């Protein structure tokens, strides 16, 4: 009864759970145009994830596994389902998640067949892989109710079924390390802990070996996605879009949301997108408008591009942005290799490269 009253008053007064606010991009997240101005290495149909063994960059593009040779790409393998996650293993092997439902481990990127296959009926949206302690592979399963391609449906369902799975390469068993996460979408080892990004809760948590959770970074103004290690310590955290008050509002309006999901084409939902500006039918938040034909870069974004550099403790050091008026939106993966940061902007289907020295120089300027 008291809880119901509290819900009612919160909704009336705009407090508690009904507070419709978003954090600002400030401090280390101060906007710039570095990601927008990044070098375009290649254009792909459906780029999804990146992996590197320190020498070679591997790209998951739809059903194809590609290798970057200079500025050209070579197809290593083609699967029967789209790749949803990719990672290089310390022993030279490579692991891929297919359609979010199966993980295959290969002895080498060019090996003809997988040495191991993990498949479980509960696997629904495996979206990130990383080597774990010992002979294990860590996977994040965004949702157990919606497939990977329906991530926006999971957000609108207010999904809280994300999991972190430990795939044991020796015993071939699967263990759930954490569950009930708000779309787990990215994992990376940090000492004895695992850093996991939770997109719908806009935070990064640290998971202990026993499954204990600790919040590392929260109240992000974005939907965080994959994590990868930085060469000089710390991490790269990507974010596929930014939060807006309009979406936060819709997420609290259950009846409206249900009706929108039933009656409106998902393309035009009031929901975050990986790219925008494609149609005049797209819903807009007030102020998300053009002035004299130019989109205001500070307008509430429908899509956005961001990579955040975190230190070893998860404190943001700086970020590279593609703002509302930019194109390189929907960043879902970033890895560091040879003094450069490679990132996938899934919105326009681009592989981008930024030299780290150039980033630091630009931030200093």
């Amino acid at each position, binding site marked *: 009864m008291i809880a119901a009253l509290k819900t009612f008053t919160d909704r009336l007064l705009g407090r508690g759970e009904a507070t419709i606010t978003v954090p*600002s991009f400030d*401090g280390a997240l101060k906007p710039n145009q570095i990601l927008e101005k990044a070098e375009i290495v290649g254009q792909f149909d459906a780029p999804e994830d990146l992996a590197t063994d320190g020498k070679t960059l591997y790209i998951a593009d739809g059903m194809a596994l590609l290798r970057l040779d200079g500025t050209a790409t070579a197809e290593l393998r083609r699967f029967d389902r789209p790749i949803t996650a990719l990672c290089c293993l310390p022993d030279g092997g490579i692991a891929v998640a297919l359609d979010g439902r199966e993980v295959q481990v290969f002895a080498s990127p060019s090996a003809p067949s997988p040495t191991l296959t993990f498949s479980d009926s509960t696997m629904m949206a495996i979206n990130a892989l990383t080597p774990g302690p010992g002979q294990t592979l860590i996977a994040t399963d965004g949702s157990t109710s919606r497939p990977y391609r329906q991530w926006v449906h999971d957000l609108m369902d207010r999904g809280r079924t994300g999991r972190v799975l430990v795939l044991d390469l020796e015993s071939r068993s699967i263990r759930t390390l954490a569950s009930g996460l708000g779309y787990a979408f990215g994992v990376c080892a940090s000492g004895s802990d695992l850093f996991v990004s939770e997109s719908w809760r806009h935070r990064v948590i640290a998971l202990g070996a026993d499954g204990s959770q600790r919040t590392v970074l929260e*109240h992000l103004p974005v939907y965080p996605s994959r994590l990868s290690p930085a060469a000089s310590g710390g991490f790269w955290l990507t974010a596929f879009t930014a939060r807006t008050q309009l979406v936060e509002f819709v997420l609290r309006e259950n009846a409206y949301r249900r009706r929108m999901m039933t009656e409106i084409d998902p393309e035009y939902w009031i929901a975050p997108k990986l790219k925008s500006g494609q149609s005049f039918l797209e819903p807009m938040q007030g102020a998300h408008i053009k002035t004299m034909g130019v989109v205001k870069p500070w307008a509430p974004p429908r899509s956005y591009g961001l990579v955040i550099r975190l230190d070893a403790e998860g404190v*943001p050091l700086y970020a590279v942005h593609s703002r509302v008026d930019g194109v390189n939106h929907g960043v879902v993966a970033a890895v560091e290799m040879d003094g450069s940061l490679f990132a996938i902007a899934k919105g326009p289907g681009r592989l981008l490269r930024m030299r780290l020295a150039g980033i630091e120089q630009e931030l200093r300027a």
Partner: protein
Amino acid sequence: MSDDIILALRKATKLYAGVPAIENVDFELRRGEIHALVGENGAGKSTLTKVMAGVVALTSGKMEVDGVEATPRTPLEARHLGIAMVFQENSLVPTMTVAQNLFLGQEKFYNRLRGIYIAAQQFLQSLNFDVTPTATVGMLGAAKKQMVEIARAVLHEAKVIIFDEPTATLTPEEKKYFFDLVRDLKRRGVSIVFISHALEEALVLADRITVLRDGKHVVTDDAAKFDRARIVQAMVGRDLSNTLYGLRKNSVRPAGARVLTVQNLKMAPMVKNNSLSVFAGQITGVFGLVGAGRTETFKVVAGVLKRDFFHGGEVILHGKPVRYRVPAPAVRAGIAYVTEDRKVEGFFETMSVARNIYLGLLAKLPGGRFFLSSREADQVGKSWVERLKVRATGNDIKVVELSGGNQQKVVIAKSLVQEPDLIIFDEPTRGVDVGAIVEIHELIQRLADEGKAVVMISSYLPEIMALSDRILVSRQGKVVEEFSALDATEEKIMYAAVH
């Protein structure tokens, strides 16, 4: 005596309980000149001007007006001599209208209110003052109150007008307007004495500058022969080359953990959808013109003001949403707010230094204390007086008896005794002398070095640029721009604050 001299003080000495506030001071004011009086707090500037305005009488020495010895014993007598003073804390009656204040003390037996309003309107227009004569003074801003004070002085046909810190509460635009006004008064033949801690103002506006130190006259010279360094040297009698102003930063402190997040905060009509973050181990400077909503935002954070009742936004401290309706829980949560208006909100002026600081500690304790310990109060007070170098003759001295800089240190000590994580300094050096400014700046830097999250709200750009690691610019109720101290310039900051 030269005809050129309208007012002079010869060997002026004023003792308070045997202690000289001014000692053997010689001062001359020329006809139609603007004369700046500068010095540290406690240098004797206010006493000197109060002697001229008839507020206090000299212990020895003499005062001459137009070459004739004069000893005004009250402000009214001084006014009859043509001397008017515009005080720092204005002397207007807040519940009366502008016109009523202008003619206060000059009422006739039968007053026709409409006639007063018309006369006031004509007079204000002749001075080109945009003030409505029917407005209640309490509803006016600081600049407009200042205008009414000045208008009253001019109305009384003052030949000498003394301004005590006239620009302390004015915005940059209002300052420019004030400077034009003072120059206009000069053209009308009025002689001006003005006290200012902003040395640039003295250099820009004054014809001559007199520097006082420890109640003694140090130097009087043409303003053109002074620069900032010479004034400071004369004021403090020591080298203050370590002062931060004017130095370009080549490094900033890295941001630590996010301590405070303000999200879409609303407090009509001052704060409009304001969002910002404050990080540990950094000084976050907040710049903006008066009315930009800076103070109100942080007063909401500290529980001094309340945000809007409906959809007022969120304040997140250490990752947890908080909503303080009064300051006490904010203090207990580790937030300290050092007010901009120390005389009204900062301390109990008739209580001792030690007891004031002890009150700060009591505010931190949940439920307070039933019995207060005088010994503990003395110990706490003594410890902080030493740490912050408060120049007081004893712990039991009343705060009102301290100079502005030392009063400010007491206010700061009262907050720091609470061992806060987040310290909000609102105009920390307003009305504070140069020596104390350096000490307060060093203290602020030290707090950031110790890992505290420090917010410094200031309208003084050199201070913002010298201290801040990151600079937030506020305009019309929200933060509109953020600069790193490395790439900020005065032009960029001011542009963001205005446009």
